[in-house]
């Protein structure tokens, strides 16, 4: 969640509208999310229904992704899990972004002790590698989606705060901002009119790639048994459940892994498209 570094797909290469990749990525995610709500009717199988007579069926027309150790349809489960993973990954990127933007603006404006305090706090947070911070917080709060979100919020706001603070510091020296302030515009309006529009493009691109990181952290936590617990359905947890059968019933753990990669590609498409748009 610490998007402190440049990630591929976020670079100034070709100019272009970016519409095609943006659209492709967005449609992919939207479809996946929509399908997660209708997994049962779409696949014709109840994702939670165990059928001990249909265990470990390989992928067929009936069960596209095969069935697992309890005879549950893996395709239906992969789709339902999207309803857990996507919103959590999204929130895991958006919540820290909002916190970071507010704290960053605060740190940029209030140059006194408040600004210093925010930046020192940022230093402190960055002293913890993200997984370690997450694991420690989950240890303290107990496993689950809520703990994951708290961990993400605590760990990932720093990047945004630094970004927004930088923009504020740069802008406040600019003539038009000074003029606006002299004209009696309040801090809030200056912030909304001038600072945010300048900081937002980059923040949005950060957030897009943070979604991928948030997803892989959530999946890793669940894989380690510290994230989403059964009967909740989550990709990392499905991979862990299918791991014992990797050699003979590979589909149980390979399919959810492919789903994670698919989301990664879709988000990358969106991020790339957005960046081109915002840089035009």
């Amino acid at each position, binding site marked *: 969640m610490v998007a402190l570094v440049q990630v591929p797909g976020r670079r100034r290469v070709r100019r272009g509208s970016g519409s095609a990749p943006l659209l492709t990525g967005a449609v992919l995610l939207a479809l996946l999310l929509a399908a997660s709500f209708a997994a049962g009717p779409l696949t014709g199988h109840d994702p939670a229904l165990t059928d*001990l007579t249909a265990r*470990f069926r390989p992928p067929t027309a009936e069960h596209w992704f095969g069935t697992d*150790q309890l005879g549950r349809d893996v395709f239906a489960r992969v789709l339902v899990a999207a309803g857990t993973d996507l919103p959590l990954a999204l929130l895991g990127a958006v919540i820290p972004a909002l916190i970071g933007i507010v704290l960053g603006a605060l740190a940029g404006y209030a140059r006194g002790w408040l600004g210093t305090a925010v930046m020192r706090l940022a230093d402190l947070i960055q002293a913890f590698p993200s997984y370690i911070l997450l694991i420690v917080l989950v240890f303290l709060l107990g496993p689950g989606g809520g703990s994951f979100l708290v961990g993400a919020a605590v760990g990932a706001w720093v990047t945004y705060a630094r970004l927004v603070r930088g923009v504020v510091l740069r802008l406040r020296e600019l003539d038009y901002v000074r003029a606006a302030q002299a004209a009696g515009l309040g801090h809030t309006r200056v912030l909304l009119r001038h600072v945010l529009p300048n900081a937002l493009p980059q923040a949005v691109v950060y957030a897009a790639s943070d979604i991928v990181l948030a997803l892989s952290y959530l999946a890793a936590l669940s894989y380690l*048994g510290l994230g989403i*617990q*059964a009967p909740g359905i989550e990709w990392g947890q499905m991979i862990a459940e299918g791991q*014992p*059968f990797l*050699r*003979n019933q590979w589909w149980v753990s390979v399919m959810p892994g492919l789903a994670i990669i698919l989301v990664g590609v879709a988000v990358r498409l969106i991020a790339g498209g957005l960046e081109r748009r915002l840089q035009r």
Partner: protein
Amino acid sequence: MNKWTKPAAAIAAVALVAGCGSGTGTGTGGSGTGAVKASNDLVIGRTVAVDGMSGDSCYGAGSISTMPMIYGNLLTNKPDGSGVQPGIAASYDYDATARTYTFHLREDAGFSNGSPVTGADVAFSFEQWRDGKTSGAYYDMIKSAEATDAHTVVVHLTRADTFLPALLTWCTSTVYPDRYAGMTPEQFFAKPIGAGPFTFASWQNPGPSETITLKKNPHYYDAAKGQPSIDTVVVKTSADASQQMLAFQGGQLDLIEGLTADEGNQLTTEQARIPKPSQARDLMLNSKRPALADVNLRKAISAAIDRNALASVQQGYVVPAEGILPINVPNSVPPTEPYTYDLAAAKALMAQRADQKPVTLTLGFEGSSSTVKTMVQLIRDQLAQIGVEVTLKPSDSATVYSQGSSGDFDMLISDPSAISPTVFDPISFVLTAWYPWTGADTALMKDKFTVGTSSTDDAVKDAAVRAIQDDARAQSTVIGLVNMSTAFAVADYVEGFTATPFLSYDAAAIRIRIRTGS
């Protein structure tokens, strides 16, 4: 010991899940019937670390298997689980009226440092067991032990007891050299000296990822018979059972202890050694909770659980339970009326409840085992059929234990297992832990336990056990789910291995087919 056998230990040592009948079993580990190995080393994989090097601390499956390799026991388990057989003691006499046991030691038993095992060593060991901080309570019937000559030891008891021979096969009954061969206990357990088939060499990285290395003990009592045959034993512990299975299939492990059906169904039938199921898995129902105080609900839950379905997921490793106690253990008899799956009866019982409010219950279990997870998901579905909503509560073994002992649970899963050939071993645990935890009436069980452990007559023991099983059925605070096998994965070039039902096995008898010349 068996004691709650630390869920982690029991679970690791226990066989579970899957075994989907057909279409599996294509594993290649060890490869072919003519397979050989390059060196005379046995590399063992397991998921449970040892509890330390002293017998007193022995508790989980890791120590249960390792301690006998290093120390040796006065008596050992028969491989088929039907009783005890000679170990360091060639024979023993029990005098019920005098309350004494007399042990006659083999003359060819020797410690790894070369000294012979004498009566003084054994008498010293009895005192250490009785005075042990952790396991001493098991030996509280021992008044004193004295060596009457170099190879005879007389043990005086405070009360009549027929349980001692079984106890002597436990991993807590480790034979030490007299006065720890002149060392402090701390020095001794850092590099222990024992009379078992192997000598302690090193213990690296103690804990969940530890490696223990043992070398052949040339002074072992069966050395003349060419035992042990193996030069070196290396025990590699790792928490990841599926990874161990890959390592086994890749020829990097020769033996896996505590094979579960999840992994075992990937092996050939020759490689997966599955002894008779002898570990019970039970469900505790807390009758101190308002809803569960109604015996009708407890009986309804028992009737609504389809034990055949639970077992079918782990075909070949697990069988449905008939009562609360492990089967295939001497004197284990089923209740007069074994459990039956009867949904209509369960619904009728639900209707007879005094309070007809809908029921929501939590189900606590040890969450790291994939096999337990599969089972609780099935139970949740089955209880939904009678309108009981179940919330799954996975946690680690220590938390499960503390939930049980503090009464902070609705339903809890755990495994009473026998580690010696008597069913009174698991009964003692149910009596001292589960019954009080679930608020059950212990009077009948206490009485029958005393009757059973002071008698030498099998008919008397059987009757006592049946009464205990029937009482458990009537109270339904502890209900049996399944009985599980303690299975092993064994490479094709490993010979002479026999799985016992008690988590341990005779490592001295194991041979490895070695590549010769060419």
